[in-house]
């Protein structure tokens, strides 16, 4: 069955390439909101589902792209392991393939690593209909260019992801949340000071004068960290999940939601509406409307980039690339998808 699916996928892509007929790659359809224009016949990857191999003691799992994220997470949880980048689902049907294509990481990202950090290998079908495997199922591997990580966040524009191997990590034994009353800039500074010490931080969030900090690890380590950091302990397991899935009331505001990726210690960027700040200052959300050019230029001056995450009209979704980098992007697109049929326009104009 598996081989037949890949073979038919290759045939279909070859056929579309010959006709220059676009394909719109789709898994669970939970991230349709993300990215720019989408056109073409739907290519449904969700039937290609299931865990191919899972070796808990190797810390490695290989999974087909159509596998529901919830199914994979449940299997890992049964062995007290996890995807350490804590990916958001944004809906019940989220697949691991779509998650990789979007490179979404959640609250644990600044302290554990991003999605791409945990990708060990990918199997793809490129725009020429070739079934290719990059990377592998081992943790250390420097043979060949790192094409598997390139697939993370490429929104399917370079290839249809069919299988992914991840490094997984043990679930922390224990978690606790501390809350502090702090204004934004003091909160950001404090969180970064803590991050420079061997403290078991695993997530931070600031909103409306309140900083929440999640700690993960051995109970003794958390107790010692609490004594050092102060603050007030609260029960916040639901909060972190709601933050990860953007189910907090902050995210229910109408209109455009902007995602500002900034250096963690960057000063406050002025926006018309209030911000929610995650990732120790590295990720800041704000509802629109804003002046796109002004916001992007102030974010860029600080070394960051700004994305229209949700609610836009599909134009100007991603931060424009500088010319030299844009040149590389266009050439990579042509290299992997010469007919330009894989999710054309979903990311940039190509």
């Amino acid at each position, binding site marked *: 069955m598996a081989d037949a699916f890949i073979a038919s996928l290759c045939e279909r892509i070859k056929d579309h390439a010959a006709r220059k007929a676009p394909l719109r790659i789709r898994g669970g359809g939970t991230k349709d909101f993300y990215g720019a224009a989408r056109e073409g016949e739907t290519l449904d990857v969700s039937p290609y589902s299931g865990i191919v191999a899972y070796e808990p003691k190797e810390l490695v799992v290989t999974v087909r792209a159509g596998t529901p994220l919830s199914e994979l997470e449940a299997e890992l949880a049964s062995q007290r392991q996890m995807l350490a980048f804590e990916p958001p689902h944004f809906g019940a049907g989220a697949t691991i393939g779509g998650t990789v294509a979007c490179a979404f990481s959640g609250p644990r*990202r600044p302290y554990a690593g991003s999605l791409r950090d945990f990708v060990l290998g990918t199997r793809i079908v490129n725009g020429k209909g070739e079934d290719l495997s*990059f990377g592998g199922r081992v943790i250390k591997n420097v*043979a060949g260019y790192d094409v598997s990580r390139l697939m993370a*966040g490429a929104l399917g524009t370079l290839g249809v992801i069919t299988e992914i191997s991840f490094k997984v990590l043990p679930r922390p034994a224990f978690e606790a949340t501390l809350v502090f009353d702090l204004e934004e800039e003091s909160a950001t500074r404090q969180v970064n000071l803590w991050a420079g010490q061997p403290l078991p931080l695993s997530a931070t969030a600031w909103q409306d004068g309140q900083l929440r900090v999640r700690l993960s*690890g051995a109970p003794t380590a958390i107790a010692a960290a609490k004594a050092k950091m102060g603050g007030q302990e609260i029960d916040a397991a639901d909060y972190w999940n709601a933050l990860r899935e953007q189910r907090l009331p902050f995210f229910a505001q109408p209109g455009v939601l902007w995602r500002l990726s900034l250096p963690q210690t960057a000063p406050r960027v002025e926006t018309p509406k209030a911000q929610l700040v995650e990732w120790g200052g590295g990720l800041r959300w704000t509802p629109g409307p804003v002046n796109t050019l002004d916001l992007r230029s102030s974010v860029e001056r600080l070394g960051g980039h700004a994305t229209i995450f949700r609610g836009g009209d599909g134009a100007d979704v991603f931060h424009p690339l500088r010319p030299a980098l844009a040149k590389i992007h266009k050439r990579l697109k042509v290299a992997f998808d010469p007919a330009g049929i894989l999710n054309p326009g979903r990311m940039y104009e190509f």
Partner: protein
Amino acid sequence: MGVVAEASLRSRVLERLRAIRPPPVIIADEEGLRPFETDAFIQHRATPMLAVLPESEDQVRAVVIACRDLGLPVVSRGAGTGISGGAIPHPEGVLLVVSKMKRVISIDALARTAKVEPGVRNLQVSELAAPHGLFYAPDPSSQSICSIGGNVAENAGGVHCLKYGLTTHNILAVRAIDGDGDAIEAGGPALDAAGFDVLALLTGSEGNLGVITQVTVKLLALPERVETVLAVFPTVRDAAEAVSEIIGAGIIPAALEMMDRIVIEACEKFLAMGFPAGAEALLLAEVDGGNEETLAELAAVREVLARCGATQVRVAADDVERERLWKSRKGAFPALATMLPDYYAMDGTIPRRCLPDVLDRVYALAAEYGMVIANVFHAGDGNIHPCIFYDSNKPGELERAEELGGRILEICVEVGGTITGEHGVGIEKLRQMCVQFRPGELGAFHDVKRAFDPDGILNPGKAVPTLKRCSEWGGTHVRGGKIPRPEIPRF
């Protein structure tokens, strides 16, 4: 190329390079070029047409553009500690040596980043970060002399990769000059960047996609406590089981190194470590982090080691003892090398569960070839470094060592692993690349290269074989007395 044409090309190159303002150091005489003939992969050497030592990104750009215009290969080189031949010069090309680009541009303690030029030494970054309570995690064995630019080009690892990752996990941004002579900035000071993950492609590209001119690395909090344990096991299988059980217990040690009986014998003979008779495997585990977390992990590790049949367990009481325990890992090879002067260090990675079987096959091969193979592993991540000992004075022995090494790498691929965990392909493992990848993947690699370097001037002939050149191969050879830089720790 004819002698006259070559001389004329050489004078045109010199003319172009001498016109660069301010002028970079240019080395054109044979005597001056000799130190650059090879990197730490000493089996192969070549004299470049010229070597240029730029001091700035502008000069790098000017050199690359000149070479592009004249169709000349450009090989970039950092400290020359690579052991797969990635920085061996092209005889008809320019060697771009970045050793003069060694400014530390900034260290930002609050942001936990350091921005450095490519010639800055790996260890220097950690030394400069230490007063802020921070360090740079990747620690290849040559860290006291290897440079950050080369680390990025090779995606360097070290003994702490299971917990802290490779270079690719520990950098935020890279500036590089591509084959067109354009400056590209991949990544950035934020936690992610817009567009494709070009940073991932550049990392480990072995000088094929760009000349690295600046790197922003992440710094981590120095651990508050480090605990080091050495355990002796009666069989490799027991030791491998202990590794699995430690990880199964939810512990990610900072280091988890395994050594086999050849190493143990050398330890006994030369270092008098006092291991019990019949020991077949040593396991060196290090846990680090906050005080309480580390103590909790140490207790769990000790419990697992006892349960898995360790016949001796030693916990370092202080740094002096820690150093002594690490000697079993780092001191055995110089000791072995006094008996057999030449060794060839391999660098495969295998799924850890295959370790005992792969080791049996390695021993069987050693017996078949009548050669000694000592094995050290980064056991946590399955990265194995079998070292084949041979005597280059015996005719044909080097070639047999190379053949044996190739067969070991092919076993690594066969069990689902890879031919190189951290040393890179360079020119050494071109042939095994053809074992690991099919023509489709190799074609995709060439396509990626063309996106960065349409004229193919950057380090041509390295890292990715043309299908035609699959018969070419070599080895990481350390030849007694003949090595240009025998002091470089190699694995």
